[in-house]
């Protein structure tokens, strides 16, 4: 630091330094996942950790992808997650518009219920859901898991979309109606395009929540052919001898789509969550 710096600039420089340290500490586990995944097998279990994966090797990924049924689990995870998100989205879109744009009896109660049900822990829901699916013979059955995921995806989606609908100026809709546009036409031509970024952000967030579920899939899916990726990932850990390289490479494969999604919609996500749930 040069003596010619003003106190304000010096403070800012110190803050920048703290920010660098904080960033390094926060990102380290993510970095360590990537670094481990790309290491050569012999460099993973070493007494002195190798901090840069060199020479880069795809061997861990090859072993992870080579495990039996990998693509079946990918298929299961995608099917269940996408189905629950798409189904929830269709139902939620109508409900969100109704809640944001109309006053009707029970509107407040509905909103209260939406918030309340999001607070019921999954570990509490899993018991009755398990018994319910059992009594209709839908255990170990992918559509059963779709229904299960909707228990948390649907309330969240309605609630968040409602926030995004409220963010669209109602004047635009009124103008379209005055211009002789039908209500449905107005929703499709005016509201929906403006809502698109919100819909994308909401579905990505809902997707991630369902994608990451371990508990429900673990309890409900008993046969290996019906495992989803999280259940498969954890089963690495419970193997007699843990293959850390393959386990971490598999975790990387599992995380990459989510990391990319989040970086793409990050700005809207923070804005959306705070305008929907929190008004600052």
């Amino acid at each position, binding site marked *: 630091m040069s003596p010619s710096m003003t106190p304000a600039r010096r403070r800012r420089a110190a803050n920048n330094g703290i920010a660098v340290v904080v960033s390094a500490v926060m990102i380290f586990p993510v970095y360590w996942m990537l670094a481990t995944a790309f290491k050569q097998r012999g460099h993973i279990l070493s007494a002195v950790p190798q901090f840069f994966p060199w020479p880069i090797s795809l061997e861990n990924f090859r072993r992870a992808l080579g495990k039996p049924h990998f693509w079946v689990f990918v298929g299961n995870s995608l099917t269940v997650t996408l189905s629950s998100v798409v189904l929830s989205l269709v139902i939620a879109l109508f409900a969100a518009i109704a809640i944001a744009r109309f006053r009707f009896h029970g509107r407040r109660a509905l909103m209260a219920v939406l918030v309340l049900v999001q607070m019921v822990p999954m570990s509490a829901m899993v018991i009755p859901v*398990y018994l319910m699916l059992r009594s209709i013979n839908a255990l170990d059955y992918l559509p059963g898991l779709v229904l299960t995921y909707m228990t948390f995806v649907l309330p969240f989606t309605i609630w968040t979309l409602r926030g995004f609908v409220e963010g669209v100026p109602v004047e635009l809709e009124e103008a379209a109606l005055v211009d002789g546009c039908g209500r449905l036409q107005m929703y499709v031509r005016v509201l929906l395009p403006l809502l698109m970024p919100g819909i994308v952000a909401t579905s990505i967030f809902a997707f991630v929540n369902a994608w990451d579920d371990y508990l429900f899939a673990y309890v409900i899916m008993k046969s290996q052919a019906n495992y989803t990726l999280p259940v498969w990932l954890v089963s690495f850990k419970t193997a007699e001898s843990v293959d850390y390289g393959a386990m971490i490479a598999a975790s990387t494969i599992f995380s990459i789509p989510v*990391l990319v999604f989040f970086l793409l919609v990050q700005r809207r996500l923070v804005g959306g969550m705070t305008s929907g749930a929190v008004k600052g």
Partner: protein
Amino acid sequence: MAMTDKRSTARPAAPRPRPGPPGRRARPSRQRLLPWAMIAPAVVALLLIQGYPLVRLLVLSTQDFGPRSLFTGQADFVGLGNFTEVFGDPDFRAVLVRTVVFTVLCVALLMVLGFLLSHLLTGVAPWARVMTTVCLVLVWAMPMVAATLVWQWMYQPQYGVANWLLTKLRIFGDLSAYDWFSHPNQALGLIILLTVWKGLPFVALTLFAARGQISESLYEAARLDGAGTLQTFRHITVPILRPVLAILTVLEVIWSMNSFTPIWVLTQGGPDGRTTTLGVLAYLTAFSRNDYGSGASIAVVTVLILAVFSVFYVRRISDQAEQGGTA
């Protein structure tokens, strides 16, 4: 008046009556039904996937529902028997206390660190802000299952990077080959660390976004009046951010208390049941001991504890939403 576009009704009376959208007055009954038709699928779905399981959970908590009931479908009504049994169990009371301590520690750390981090973000150069934000978003995005497995690997006794680093730093002496997960308190510490690390970005970024809406002129005025950083915290930032802080706190209480994956994957509640929290206990009671009734009653207790917080939260949010809607 049951159904009207709510913003138009809230507007001050226009000098001349505005022409309503065509068709609105002509078909009042159909218009009145529209919002109901729009929420009907959601209400039906919620009743089916939330309402029914919740009622079932309540009923279950009053039943002696064991492995035999799974096949017969019959279970005896025992009233509050499960609850008195559960509360009479010293193990349960230990789990209850542990859950509260775990939650308080997680939430306190999250809120304090999140607040400091959001403050830091306002006082750095743009490049540093972008860098920190990107790092935070990546941590936020990490799936919990993957993060938990990375934790498992980082704290692996012989080859984990954490033990090597800590031994090199000589803070706690020689930790090579130290098995964190076989010591209950240390294991719980690592689970708290994981929860805080994973939850911090949401708190920090939300507070930073809210902080950005406070006018900079307030801070300038305070600075001219000679206020220091702590004073501006106390008199400007915290009072204005109070609603956001309150809601974040309640959300984090709920999320920390419901945390299941990290505990289950890292320790399965062990060693000796000493990292078990209410969520894990409910799971174990129902699915390992096949005592679905007691498991349900533990879950009901958890829900009731959270309900105390939720009432506060719902009131706040629906009031705000109401204001936001009609303002």
